[in-house]
């Protein structure tokens, strides 16, 4: 498979009163055509920042310091707003977190759809309604009722499906789903995940699936990237990572899944706290919490080690020195 998106050594910071927050700090990854790439990490590890950077809609206090994001070979980082217009939503769309009130409370769902279509030059109202109805139906929603509703009249799960339908509306090449099920109850979460898997099976659409819940990843993703404190620490196919995780953080994450460990008693939470991203620890950012930490981990950043084609880990344990 060809790469559709290549992120190379990306650095993004936020200006804050205390100093620069190094939210994404040297992340590299590749998304292959037609795959579902999972990205997992604790909250605050920079997942949303990565997603917003790909779409180039970072808040005004954020800055891309360096790195490139190649989408089918064109660098999104150096692109101007005008050129980006052809990429945003038309070629790369996004499903935000359901709890986030992503829809304008004073507008009906249909108006959200119409304005989105219009912003991309589609003015044929009849076509818009037909197309969105088709998508809503596929997501098991009643189009007439939903389109007539205001956001607050829909449940979390319904809103989330509306956002998925909107993301599919222009038939983009890549969809970024940022914690699409996090705010939902367990049953709705299950339902949405099944819909998404079904959708992927039918359309073969490339997806980046972001979550803090590694248990979900096994279910939906082909490959997974593990993020810790603004860094990618391990990336590889789901089967390999779950069966034989290499990075101590990945190991700890997988040990924390109740259903994999067997019983709640065997679950091991990771001791310590994620670091402050304004003054991150030197060397490997995980070293203060790492049971295997060596001297070199405290002073020098770990290199990328390719253990096997496609399985990369950023850890001194595997570096040949």
């Amino acid at each position: 498979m060809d790469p559709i998106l290549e992120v190379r050594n990306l650095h993004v910071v936020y200006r804050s009163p205390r100093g620069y927050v190094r939210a994404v700090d040297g992340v590299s990854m590749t998304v292959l055509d037609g795959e579902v790439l999972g990205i997992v990490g604790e909250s605050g590890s920079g997942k949303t920042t990565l997603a917003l950077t790909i779409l180039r809609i970072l808040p005004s206090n954020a800055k891309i310091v360096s790195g490139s994001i190649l989408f089918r070979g064109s660098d999104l980082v150096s692109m101007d707003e005008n050129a980006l217009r052809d990429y945003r939503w038309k070629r790369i769309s996004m499903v935000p977190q359901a709890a986030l009130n992503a829809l304008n409370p004073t507008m009906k769902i249909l108006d959200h759809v119409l304005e989105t279509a219009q912003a991309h030059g589609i003015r044929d109202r009849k076509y818009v309604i037909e197309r969105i109805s088709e998508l809503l139906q596929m997501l098991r929603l009643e189009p007439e009722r939903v389109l007539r509703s205001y956001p607050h009249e829909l449940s979390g799960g319904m809103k989330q499906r509306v956002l998925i339908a909107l993301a599919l509306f222009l038939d983009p090449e890549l969809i970024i789903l940022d914690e699409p099920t996090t705010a939902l109850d367990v049953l709705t979460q299950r339902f949405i995940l099944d819909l998404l898997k079904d959708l992927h099976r039918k359309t073969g659409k490339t997806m980046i699936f972001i979550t803090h819940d590694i248990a979900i990843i096994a279910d939906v993703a082909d490959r997974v990237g593990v993020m810790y404190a603004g860094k990618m620490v391990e990336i590889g196919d789901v089967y390999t990572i779950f069966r034989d995780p290499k990075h101590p953080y990945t190991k700890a994450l997988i040990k924390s899944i109740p259903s994999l460990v067997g019983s709640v008693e065997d679950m091991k939470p990771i001791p310590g706290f994620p670091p402050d991203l304004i003054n991150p620890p030197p060397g490997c950012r995980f070293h203060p919490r790492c049971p295997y930490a060596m001297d070199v981990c405290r002073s020098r950043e770990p290199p990328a080690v390719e253990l096997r084609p496609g399985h990369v880990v950023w850890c001194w344990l595997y570096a040949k020195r």
Partner: protein
Amino acid sequence: MRWIVRRAIIAFLTVFTAMTLSFFVIKAMPGDPIDALAQAFVRQYYMSYEEAYRLALAAAPFVPKGPVWKQYVEYMTKFFRGDLGVSISFSTGKKVAEILADAIPWTVLVVATSLVISFLMGIVIGMVMAYKHGSKLDSSLIVAFSILRSIPEYIVAILLLWILAFQMGLFPTGGRYDYWALELLKKGDVLAFLGNVLWHAALPILTWIITHISGWALAMRGSTIGVLGEDFITYAKVRGLPSRRIVIKYVGKNAILPLFTSFMLSLGFMFGGSIFIEFIFSYQGVGWVLYQSITQRDWYLMLGAFNIIIIAVVLGALLADMLYGFLDPRIRRGGTT
């Protein structure tokens, strides 16, 4: 529909209670209209107080007599039949309703104009500040508005009167219009008359805008900053919506909502005008009448003016509640309150 009826009943009770309160508070004020008039005679004509009192009694025969609760019942029953009583001392014998009917349009002209202008300007400036929050422009405007907000109306009014009217002669020093303009109106020159009216209203309006714009701008700034942080703004940008649409439909509309109720209440309060502004510019609106009636203890005139304000404010609040549902779909089925 049921909640409208319920809200209307509550509004009526509010009006009734407020009117009752103001009746007894006014009656409990020290001094009475005859005494006030007598004091004025003493000051003007150097006569003895007894003599002045007799004169005042003769000049103002309309002072109410009998027990206060009887006066109250009589006043209220007449009020709801549209009879607001007569002026005791300010314009002896003249109907309060007539005096107010003459004053209200002028006050409304000044306040409605100022309110709309200061609201619109405040909204725009507040939004610009919010979009540039943290910038030099924003922080200097915050300082400027905070200072402006703490300057009392009468200081601004006196400064404008002194500089623009007395020193530079750009505007008249007082009054609602000139008599020569009225003559022109009688000859059919409406435009000239209107021009004259606006020329007289200019300084009161300017004072009002200067003292009220800070409130709107700062409120809108805060509200807009809140909305800018909402997820639906980010999500609108990702969908590639043009920024014009985001500014108006997403930021503007949602940021104005919390200001709407205060705007409607201000519309109600506008019938009271401003005592200071109208007094300083000798602008004969409701505030000016109110000032005169208070100094002369002209009970019924005072009550009439207060009650008009009370009714207007309560109606404004009622209207705000009803209209809010149309603006904000989240409370449209307002049956719960």
